[in-house]
């Protein structure tokens, strides 16, 4: 450990300028588009494409936000997206955890079932969206929250199952076995030992599922219309006959970023642990 540290130090000391430049460039690379989006969302329409570009709008305005949220029904889309994504995420994490546990600990379905689950993601969405659309029309799920929640749960389940499967498999079995001998039923061993230990993995899988739902466009486009439409579909409206509504698009984009960032900050600790599948030994 100390050998590694001391081996690194001379390198770090000899390159502070290079390092600062590199980090600075990277920072600009990442943050500039975000800043430009924010900048666009608060500048008057005339400044969108002005030359030279307007870096700091003289008269910031919230009109674009108002228009995007109300005139273009962005707020409804936001609420729909929240309801659908949250519900689908919870269901996906729940079923994903249960299925992954069963695959990992009881080898359910042998080696084929677990691969079949993942292989569902090899299917291009276009291959299933049309039949789903027709079925939804037939049974009244078209353009409903329930329909979208079901679609997104199924859509995110393969990845949730696989993330949790990997997580459970690297978790030593002996703690659950100790619980079984100690006096637990299988269900108790799962609930009071396996689940708490798998919490970082579950959170990581849930974050992935949420982001996937939050940004999904194609299913939403085909399976919703005027009532259960989600936030991404609202953006269609900003590119129309009379030119693009850059300000409104930017405003809504900023709004749609908020939950992702909040979630990222909340889950950061769990996410890294969950992704690196850190061992959870006692």
């Amino acid at each position, binding site marked *: 450990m100390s050998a590694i540290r001391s081996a690194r130090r001379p390198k770090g000391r000899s390159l502070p300028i290079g390092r600062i430049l590199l980090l600075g460039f990277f920072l600009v690379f990442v943050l500039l588009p975000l800043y430009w989006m924010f900048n666009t969302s608060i500048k008057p329409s005339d400044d969108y494409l002005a030359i030279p570009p307007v870096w700091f709008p003289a008269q910031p305005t919230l009109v674009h936000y108002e228009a995007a949220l109300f005139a273009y029904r962005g707020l409804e889309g936001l609420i729909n997206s929240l309801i659908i994504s949250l519900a689908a995420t919870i269901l996906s994490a729940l079923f994903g955890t249960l299925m992954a546990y069963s695959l990992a600990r009881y080898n359910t379905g042998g080696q084929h079932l677990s691969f079949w689950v993942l292989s569902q993601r090899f299917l291009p969405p276009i291959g299933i969206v049309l039949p789903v659309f027709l079925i939804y029309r037939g049974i009244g799920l078209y353009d409903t929250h329930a329909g979208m929640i079901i679609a997104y749960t199924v859509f995110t389940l393969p990845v949730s199952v696989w993330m949790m499967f990997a997580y459970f498999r690297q978790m*030593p079995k*002996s*703690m659950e*076995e*100790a*619980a*079984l*001998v*100690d*006096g*637990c*039923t299988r269900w*108790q061993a799962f609930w*009071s*030992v396996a689940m*708490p*230990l798998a919490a970082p993995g579950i959170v990581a899988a849930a974050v992935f599922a949420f982001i996937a739902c939050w940004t999904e466009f194609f299913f939403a486009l085909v399976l919703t219309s005027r009532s259960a439409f989600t936030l991404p579909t609202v953006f269609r409206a900003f590119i129309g006959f009379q030119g693009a509504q850059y300000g409104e698009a930017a405003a809504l984009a900023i709004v749609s970023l908020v939950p992702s960032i909040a979630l990222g900050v909340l889950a950061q600790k769990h996410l890294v642990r969950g992704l690196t599948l850190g061992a*959870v*030994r*006692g």
Partner: protein
Amino acid sequence: MAHVKINGLRKDYGAFAAVRGIDLDIRDGELTVLVGPSGCGKSTLLRTIAGLEEASGGTIEIGGDVVNDVRPRDRDVAMVFQDYALYPHMSVARNIGFGLKARRMPKAEIDGRVDEAARMLGITQLLDRYPRQLSGGQRQRVAIGRAIVRNPRIFLFDEPLSNLDAQLRDEMRGEIKRLHQDLATTMIYVTHDQIEAMTLADRIVLMRDGLIEQQGAPLDLFERPASTFVAGFLGSPRMNFLPGHLVRTASSDAIRLGSSRMPLPAGRKLRDAADGQAVLLGLRPEHLTRAHGAAPQPGHVRHDATIELIQPTGSRSYATFSLAGTAVMAELQAHDVSRPGEHVQIDINMTRASVFDLQTERAL
């Protein structure tokens, strides 16, 4: 408290048979050690008794009831795992009381029992800590506490000491033995360490490739091994095996090693053995001693030796020399030999020698 009876037990993993037909009778209150090299099926057998693995054939009886189809929690056994398997998200107190809580024991009674177990093991001051804050030896104690608090019919141990350093291992070994004397509960203890097996066991069950090679009291196995495998497994340094031939006469038997004739004691008549048969003579290092006096003691054979290698341990010195073309190790007194190349005379105690058939490797 319960006796355990195992009949024709098998465990297959796919096409591979890990346990291939075991019959075992473990008396109430006995400490039985399952010992054998890594991979011989000890853990599999133990886990099948616990109910963590389903038997592929045969029956397991605990206290007179066949438990093959009984789930682990209802077998009333407690198990200590090699990696301790403590619950990392629970305090020591909750770890120890967990099994009682799962069985819906009233909280006050759980607390009382946890305190008592902690006191027995000297870990009262650790009750509020979490497993990650404990040393290896402390975790081990918690794992044992979790077992004894339940007052089960049988204790199962799967190599509980193998993750500890040597000194702590010796200490805990003594504690486990004392625990057994105090509780007088049936214990089945798995280890690959022959010293642990010898020191702990009321009875040793020595396994090999999914079968029992020999079972009995520790000294029985040590002094009357049924095969070269048992003889070589128990004892350190290992028994010396010398290839030779049997010489049978009306009055007594002897082993011919090259040009030397090694007479067996008069009372020791070999069964089912033919004159001239190829055999292995088994000599334990402690039965080869530096010669003293003019003539060897009765039953001993005196032999010239040129010491090739000396390994002093402090209390003893292991000396290697060649006997009829085979390298042999003797466990001598610390100052018996001083340098390689030294010429000495060694007395070989033939009253303690073992003889094995060269082909079958079974004792004669």
